[in-house]
């Protein structure tokens, strides 16, 4: 994802840089850069132009360490909590405008050279792999999506791999999960499956060969399925979706306690193959889910 974002961002950001100064985008702790530093949020032009008005607003936001994380530890120009130089503030604002607020951490890394912050919050998931599933039990791809979109990571909890006999006892000899046809009404196979590998306050991920109606995955979110513990099911393979999206998407339904799909194709919760971002409302709700600790 990062490589994709970088390819998208670079041309536009380069143009912006050319419009401001003939310098590359990378942070440069040089005297010339320091000479452009904005003091107390003021702009080099005195603060009157529209660009500076926006930069001042951004500087105030960036000074809020609670919202944007720790300032650059290697800052030769900017000390923690201090206003950003004009050029960096402008480029960062442009990056965030283009990439969306969900990618603020990425922009800060690219523009300011900050090291990625280690997410403070974690979602622990148990994983049960049934016979016929060819998936890795790793949740790394989905974790990367949530790190970028909502600044928390996914950690594997209790993992188990079921043999053929155990798997058939749960979902039948075809190893294909009989999937629900209406919200709130799980099938017998789903009820049996989702009783496996539980821990209090934890979502369990079930990896199966296939689902009976051809769905790529499904989620049991608390308000939609009050009789089923919080669970998601994923079939083999992520294609045609980008790596990690199916699992992150299904976990999103549980974290958001919502089965809906927004129209915005960049949104993780949309049907789109590539959307992995979260809007501010969903990001906040996901982060505040009881499952994210």
């Amino acid at each position, binding site marked *: 994802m990062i490589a994709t974002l970088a390819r998208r961002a670079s041309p536009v950001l380069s143009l912006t840089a050319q419009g401001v100064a003939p310098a590359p985008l990378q942070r440069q702790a040089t005297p010339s850069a320091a000479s452009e530093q904005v003091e107390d949020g003021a702009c080099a032009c005195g603060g009157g132009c529209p660009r500076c008005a926006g930069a001042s607003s951004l500087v105030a936001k960036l000074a809020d360490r609670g919202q944007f994380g720790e300032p650059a530890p290697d800052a030769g120009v900017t000390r923690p909590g201090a206003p950003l130089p004009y050029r960096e503030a402008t480029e960062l604002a442009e990056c965030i405008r283009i990439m969306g607020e969900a990618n603020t951490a990425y922009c800060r890394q690219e523009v300011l050279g900050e090291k990625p912050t280690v997410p403070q919050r974690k979602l622990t998931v148990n994983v049960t792999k049934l016979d016929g599933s060819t998936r890795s039990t790793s949740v790394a791809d989905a974790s990367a999506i949530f790190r970028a979109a909502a600044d928390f990571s996914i950690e594997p909890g209790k993992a188990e791999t079921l043999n053929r006999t155990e798997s058939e006892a749960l979902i039948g000899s075809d190893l294909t999960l009989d999937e629900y046809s209406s919200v709130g009404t799980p099938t017998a196979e789903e009820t049996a499956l989702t009783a496996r590998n539980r821990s209090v306050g934890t979502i369990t991920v079930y990896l199966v060969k296939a689902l*009976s109606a*051809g769905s*790529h*995955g499904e*989620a049991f979110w608390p308000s*939609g399925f009050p009789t089923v513990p919080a669970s998601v099911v994923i079939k083999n393979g992520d294609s045609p979706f980008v790596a990690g999206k199916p699992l992150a998407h299904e976990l999103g339904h549980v974290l958001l306690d919502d*089965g809906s799909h927004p129209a915005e194709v960049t949104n993780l919760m949309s049907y789109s193959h590539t959307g992995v971002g979260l809007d501010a409302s969903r990001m906040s709700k996901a982060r505040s889910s009881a499952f994210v600790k």
Partner: protein
Amino acid sequence: MPGSDNDIDLQATWQSFLDALESADLEEMRRLVEESVAEWLATLSGGLEAATLRKLAAQWRMWRFRVVDGRALQPGQETVQALLGPEGKEHVLTFRRAASGWVIEHWQPGL
């Protein structure tokens, strides 16, 4: 708007497709879908195995099928999307108007 002539045509195409699966009429099924959809169905059904096709048809027949947004199709409109299934994992089907009627051009599995 549901009930319009075009919407009725689309619903009729969908029912014909389910009938073809149910009776394992592969020739009729292929007439109603693009090649890529037929390939996906083959993957899903162990190579278009008759019993599995019947199971799929039975399940999809129980599922809600509706044109996206419920908007009326416009005269001359060449493609339209429909949603199949319950909230939380609707499949997204794209229909294309062909000389012989609507065909399923693309099928995105629900998630």
